[in-house]
């Protein structure tokens, strides 16, 4: 038997058929659905008189459009948002899929809800009409984002037409230095590979620094595989994974658990498996990182200065000139001199309990900078409840943070949480594109601890100096 990577193994276990031209049909174990990329797919089903093939493997949750203020149950003011939310509600009920409506405590960002409820399990194929589906790769599940036509295809057939990707290994060796987190690892990697470095690949993250991460941290790493261009990110399951999964509402129980464990323990890349590309990074070389530009690859350690367009080559020269202009930054300026007026903590990258704990640890007993607008948006209602139980919510509120309900919120600003032109935000989310958090808004991506440091000081700051 030839040696296989983890990706090869999951692929082979879901392969239904391969045509002569190389296009394959693979089986999908879990299909997550949210309100923005699904209405047209459900409409397509209706028009064709089709049903959802496997409603018990389909999970719907509204997240992108939902307001995160406490009054949201009184109704959604924005008409288009409301129509989209109502469409999901109707579709979920008409087609009989699992559904967590806005008023359900389990509602939250789809990529947080899936793992939390035990829908995401090792060795599965998971898709969602959302690029950050990569998150679920943290469980050793093959998880990728799909477009709306593919959403319709999966709803109708529970399969997806795919061409197999290439294998890439990213190994992070050693131990993470103090103040360096999963977010810094994943941003550092994108800084090295660029946003297209992973195109055509499924990335497997491995090495001691990855192994030592909690599930929350691993989800953060895989979440941003897409920012590196990869189709998916993967981490082989281990005790940390099994521990997290065990006892979740939809995790296997009893004899099924034993059977599942026996299978899950086979999910790793064989020693001599072939990778088409390998990148090795020393954890010691990673610092708390920030983005300075308008692409997630524009990453530097917080100790650095803003680069100049001439520091780059090819098309990047113009791109950097454009992004510095947009960001209102001058080459040579210290990153720690960049003043911040808004802090956003949340998203499927960093909206889990561990992230909120990291923020609380930094701000405990302190006050955020006067005039700072700082918002904490838990990734799910359950994360929110847990943070309240642990006393974290109180610490954050005492420090001056707004304590919100769960949703995507200012990660993409489809709901009312938006930046105004020229406002500058330290955000724990994943994209710093022009206008991502509101037209003309400026985004610096950071870890939760670094966002907390910015909230306290009023500028980008090195959390190690606090």
């Amino acid at each position: 038997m030839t040696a296989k990577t983890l990706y090869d193994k999951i692929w082979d276990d879901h392969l239904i058929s391969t045509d002569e031209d190389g296009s394959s049909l693979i089986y999908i174990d879990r299909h997550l659905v949210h309100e923005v990329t699904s209405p047209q797919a459900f409409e397509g089903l209706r028009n064709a008189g089709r049903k959802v093939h496997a409603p018990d493997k389909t999970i719907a949750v509204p997240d992108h459009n939902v307001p995160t203020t406490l009054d949201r149950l009184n109704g959604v003011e924005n008409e288009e948002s409301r129509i989209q939310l109502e469409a999901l509600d109707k579709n979920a009920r008409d087609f009989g899929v699992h559904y967590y409506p806005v008023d359900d405590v389990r509602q939250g960002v789809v990529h947080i809800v899936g793992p939390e409820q035990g829908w995401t399990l090792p060795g599965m194929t998971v898709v969602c009409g959302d690029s950050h589906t990569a998150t679920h790769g943290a469980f050793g599940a093959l998880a990728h984002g799909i477009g709306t036509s593919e959403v319709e295809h999966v709803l109708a057939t529970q399969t997806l037409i795919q061409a197999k990707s290439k294998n890439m290994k990213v190994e992070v060796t050693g131990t993470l230095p103090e103040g360096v987190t999963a977010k810094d690892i994943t941003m550092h990697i994108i800084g090295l590979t660029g946003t297209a470095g992973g195109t055509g690949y499924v990335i497997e993250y491995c090495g001691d620094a990855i192994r030592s991460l909690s599930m929350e941290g691993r989800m953060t790493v895989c979440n941003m595989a897409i920012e590196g261009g990869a189709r998916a990110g993967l981490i082989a399951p281990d005790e940390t994974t099994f521990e997290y999964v065990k006892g979740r509402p939809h995790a296997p129980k009893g004899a099924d658990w034993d059977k599942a464990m026996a299978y899950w323990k086979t999910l790793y890349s064989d020693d001599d498996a072939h990778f088409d590309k390998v990148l090795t990074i020393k954890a010691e070389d990673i610092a708390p990182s920030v983005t300075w530009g308008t692409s997630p690859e524009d990453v530097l350690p917080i100790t650095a200065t803003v680069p100049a367009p001439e520091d780059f080559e090819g098309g990047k020269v113009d791109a950097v000139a454009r992004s510095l202009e947009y960001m209102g930054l001058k080459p040579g300026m210290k990153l720690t001199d960049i003043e911040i007026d808004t802090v956003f903590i949340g998203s499927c990258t960093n909206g889990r309990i561990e992230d909120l704990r990291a923020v609380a640890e930094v701000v405990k007993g302190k006050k955020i900078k006067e005039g700072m607008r700082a918002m904490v948006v838990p990734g799910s209602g359950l994360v929110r409840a847990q943070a309240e139980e642990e006393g974290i919510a109180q610490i954050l509120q005492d420090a001056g943070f707004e304590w919100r309900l769960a949703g995507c919120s200012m990660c993409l600003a489809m709901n009312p949480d938006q930046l105004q032109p020229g406002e500058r935000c330290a955000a724990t989310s994943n994209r710093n594109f022009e206008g991502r958090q509101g037209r003309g808004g400026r985004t610096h991506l950071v870890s939760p601890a670094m966002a907390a440091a910015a909230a306290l000081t009023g500028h980008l700051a090195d959390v190690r100096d606090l």
Partner: protein
Amino acid sequence: MEKFTKLTGVAAPMPLINIDTDMIIPKLFLKTIKRSGLGKNLFDEMRYDAEGNEIPDFVLNKPAYRNAQILIAGDNFGCGSSREHAPWALLDFGIRVVIATSFADIFFNNCFKNGILPIVLPQEDVDKLMDDASRGANAVVTVDLENQVITGPDGGEISFEVDAFKKHCLLNGLDDIGLTLQKADKIAAFEKEHGAKMPWV
């Protein structure tokens, strides 16, 4: 899906790398529950100022390119989100071909599902077409999918690669779901076996 066979049209140059899906169609316009009508908001933040007036410098606002059907762009076109609103907006505007040195994965797939042909070419060919395209309305380019050839305004030919299955679907305007449902027996058999092997799924 509308067939794509051969197209002759104006090519618009966008010599930028990493044109992301937020630029192609900002999230403001993702609130629709339809596929149509997004063309007017294609590249919205680059195309209009805060008051909603056209920015004359933006390529698709220039008289020569208002009816462009082909886009020529830099590396990593379509990076970012999975939103199919991006190809929907391109299509609604009238763009049927995007040519770049590389594309983001999900966007690339989404194009084929909507009758748009994304073509990957080496840098020198993209540079040549970018140069051609900058000649305005005279920059008429022909893209022939059947023969996998692009003909520039000066008659020069560039051949391109395309996945055989995707080509077949595009040439015939085939709907994937219909094709897959022809394999319903295979899917049912797989499902049974898979369910027995992994009852927890």
